[in-house]
């Protein structure tokens, strides 16, 4: 981490970049926040460890509008999002300096907290840390395996390769140990009634805070259609079950073919709704109906929803 910090400071000092988009040390051992650093002094608070799960590519929409280059730390999965943003002309590639940082999977604090309240210190979460991490709490100390408390998305990791970079720092690890579509298939195998009950239960928790939307790098609209008074779609009435469904279906639909499956939506949901189940369903369908497609892999590839073939299957057919 120190090496990375030094390198970023160097980039700032030698004028290669005007600012750095990275993570800032939190006030607790596990809550670093995404931040923009503009000076070497500020960089003292820079941190990169297992809790730096946030996908910083979306911050580059604003950052690359500013004068001078912006350095950004992107993990392998974040680079897909960045590529997708390039494709949609949302970031200015020329104004970005991509430091591709290594990743051995990111940690889910909720999983750690499940049996560790009153955390005061966590050690061993750095990129080159051990397989075990130590959690100190006021109620006693605990150790857990790094791989046991990964974010769900890391279990279906897309791989350790960065899709775009200007320089690479650190080693990455492919943490995939689960079938990407296993969760989807499990739901598909349920009866329609069971599926309906499942989603009703999950979605009824939704508080319409819009965290999923606002964190999503594909939801990069300047103004969301749900905030667009012209569409007459704005609603904040969360208890009306239809609203959440409409919101989540349409949100997933709008990012279909553009979603890189970065998993930020599920990570940030305050109610723990597995929102990726919607996006991943579309990805699965697209793969099945129109051939395999990974958004953000190739910035030139045509999005499946703005494309067609004469032989496409008919709606309602299940392939």
């Amino acid at each position, binding site marked *: 981490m120190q090496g990375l910090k030094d390198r970023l400071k160097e980039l700032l000092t030698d004028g290669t970049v005007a600012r750095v988009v990275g993570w800032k040390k939190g006030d607790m051992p596990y809550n670093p926040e995404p931040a923009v650093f503009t000076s070497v002094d500020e960089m003292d608070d820079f941190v990169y460890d297992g809790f730096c799960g946030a996908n910083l590519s979306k911050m580059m929409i604003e950052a690359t509008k500013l004068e001078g280059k912006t350095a950004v730390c992107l993990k392998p999965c974040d680079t897909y999002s960045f590529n997708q943003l390039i494709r949609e002309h949302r970031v200015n590639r020329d104004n970005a300096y991509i430091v591709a940082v290594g990743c051995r999977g990111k940690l889910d604090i909720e999983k750690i907290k499940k049996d560790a309240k009153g955390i005061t210190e966590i050690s061993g979460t750095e990129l080159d840390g051990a397989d075990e991490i130590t959690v100190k709490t006021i109620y006693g100390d605990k150790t857990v395996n790094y791989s046991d408390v990964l974010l769900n998305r890391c279990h279906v990791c897309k791989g350790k390769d960065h899709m775009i970079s200007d320089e690479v720092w650190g080693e990455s690890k492919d943490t995939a140990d689960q079938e990407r579509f296993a969760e989807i298939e499990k739901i598909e195998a349920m009866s329609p009634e069971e599926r309906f009950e499942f989603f009703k239960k999950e979605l009824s928790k939704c508080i319409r805070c819009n965290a999923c939307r606002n964190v999503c790098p594909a939801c990069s609209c300047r103004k969301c259609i749900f905030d667009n008074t012209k569409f007459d779609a704005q609603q904040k009435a969360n208890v009306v079950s*239809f609203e959440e469904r409409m919101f989540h279906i349409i949100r997933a639909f709008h990012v279909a073919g553009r979603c890189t499956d970065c998993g930020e939506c599920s990570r940030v949901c305050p109610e723990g709704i597995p929102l990726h189940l919607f996006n991943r369903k579309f990805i699965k369908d697209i793969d099945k109906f129109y051939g395999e497609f990974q958004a953000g892999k190739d910035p030139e590839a045509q999005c499946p*929803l703005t494309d*067609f073939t004469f032989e496409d299957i008919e709606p309602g057919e299940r392939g």
Partner: protein
Amino acid sequence: MSMNEEKTEFRPLIVAFCCNWCSYAGADLAGSSRLSYPADVKIIRVPCSGRVNPMFILRAFERGADGVIICGCHPGDCHYSTGNYYARRRMTLLFSMLDYMGVENGRTRVEWCSAAEGVKFSNTMNEFCEKIKSLGKSVRLGDLRCKD
């Protein structure tokens, strides 16, 4: 007594989005050929099936529709050459998602119907109405507030 029976019979509310060039004309042909279909079907004219935003479909369900059908030109015949191809992909994904969420498969449908297919239009509408009647009132996608 017969009055009561009539009232309890379920009359579905069906919204049909028809493209101006083929299906709307097909509906007109069904009309001028006096091919009847239930009055439960209400047609909204759109320039092209590619104009049908999934939000319109969900909106219809939100407001109490029991079934939504989208009619467009046959693939290859789109007045705008490609609109229905995009619509086909969009609707394929949307319908699959609705199915995935446990909404009854069959409340939504896409049918390609040309300006010459008045018979097909009428048959399709009759069939779709029957299907929706068999599924009953849409509950899973409806907005609770729309209920009386």
